[in-house]
């Protein structure tokens, strides 16, 4: 039995077909475009306060995730119950939440509240803080400035 490796023949290689690869790339790009353009409202993580009951997918008779800024002076914590008012684009919505929100929850910060609107109040079962993309050093000057221009 001869197991000597054979010389590679110089026969022409079969031509690589480019069309399937082009179709696959086009299908992938098309799929991403469909997701990006047509499914946007389904993929959006939240409705803004001013869209509740107005925008498609933000009907106030269903469970919602609502985003808005916590109004200054509205935060109250009593007997494990947290209530505050959140606003966006001049529209406000009172929020009741059983428990204490985690993260860096505070006044004048954007939050996303999960829950249902009952009698004009969002009864939340979860509160998340939506942090901005700004990173500033913590120092006395800035804290003074922040106190002077809170929520502005």
């Amino acid at each position, binding site marked *: 039995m001869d*197991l000597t490796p054979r010389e590679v023949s110089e026969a022409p290689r079969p031509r690589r077909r480019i069309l399937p690869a082009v179709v696959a790339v086009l299908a992938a790009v098309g799929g991403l475009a469909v997701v990006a353009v047509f499914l946007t409202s389904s993929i959006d*993580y939240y409705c803004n306060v001013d869209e509740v009951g107005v925008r498609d997918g933000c009907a106030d008779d269903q469970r919602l995730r609502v985003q808005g800024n916590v109004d200054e002076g509205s935060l109250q914590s009593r007997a494990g119950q947290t209530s505050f008012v959140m606003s966006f684009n001049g529209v406000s919505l009172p929020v009741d939440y059983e428990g204490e929100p985690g993260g860096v929850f505070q006044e004048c910060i954007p939050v996303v509240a999960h829950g249902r609107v009952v009698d004009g109040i969002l009864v939340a079962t979860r509160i*998340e*803080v939506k942090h901005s*993309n700004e*990173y*500033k050093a*913590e120092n006395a000057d800035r804290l003074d400035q922040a106190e002077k221009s809170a929520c502005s």
Partner: protein
Amino acid sequence: MTVGSTGTPTTRVIGALALLITGWVVVSAFFITPADSVQGDSVRIMYAHVPTAWIAYLAFVTTAIASGFSVARRHRTLGFDRVAGASAEVGVLFMAMTLITGSLWGRLTWGTFWQWDPRLTTTLFLFVTYVGYLAVRRIDTDPRQRASRSSVIALLAVLEIPLVHFSVVLWRSLHQEASVLNTDGDVRLDGLMLFTLFSGVVAFTLIFAWLVIHRQRLTTLSDLERVVGLDAAITARRAENSAGVTA
């Protein structure tokens, strides 16, 4: 390079630089940079989270480019395929670190470890895609066939990266928009924070290069070992055959 070692003077320099800059990043992140005015000390997670995400992107783009070269040269040499595989492995490692550090930061800042928002979901999808890519590479088959299959996946999977990066712009997300590579070109980080962040990017880039070079060389040695093993098996078979003929 000696057998049993994948190191060279170049990799040793890269490794030493990576160690040095990583040391600086650790010291700066924990002891020199200030706490954030809102997040407090949890901002320090950013110095690992953001660079690992960027380097994971870099790794997957490297995988796609190497796969492109591999396809263009019709897999005549497996060098590009080995680079593609090594880079994807390191990319998956960095992406896992991104997900873990992001989750820890999310708990401290958002108040939750995880949410199925567009950025987190697309990032997880990208991670799973490349785990799948690595699984395909592990299918025991001819190396050229492995290179063909994995190249196609790599060239398609890289298209997910823009979707992940711009997910916070395309859709409403719990995750904040980019502070550095954003669409309006503004940098929203204080000076020393930004410097430490970029130091982290440099450190992780060097670590990435070091790991990929070593992993690629290790794969080459592994492939060589298979060839040597095959040669030995053929020699043994010949010896058996000639012994049978003479008996």
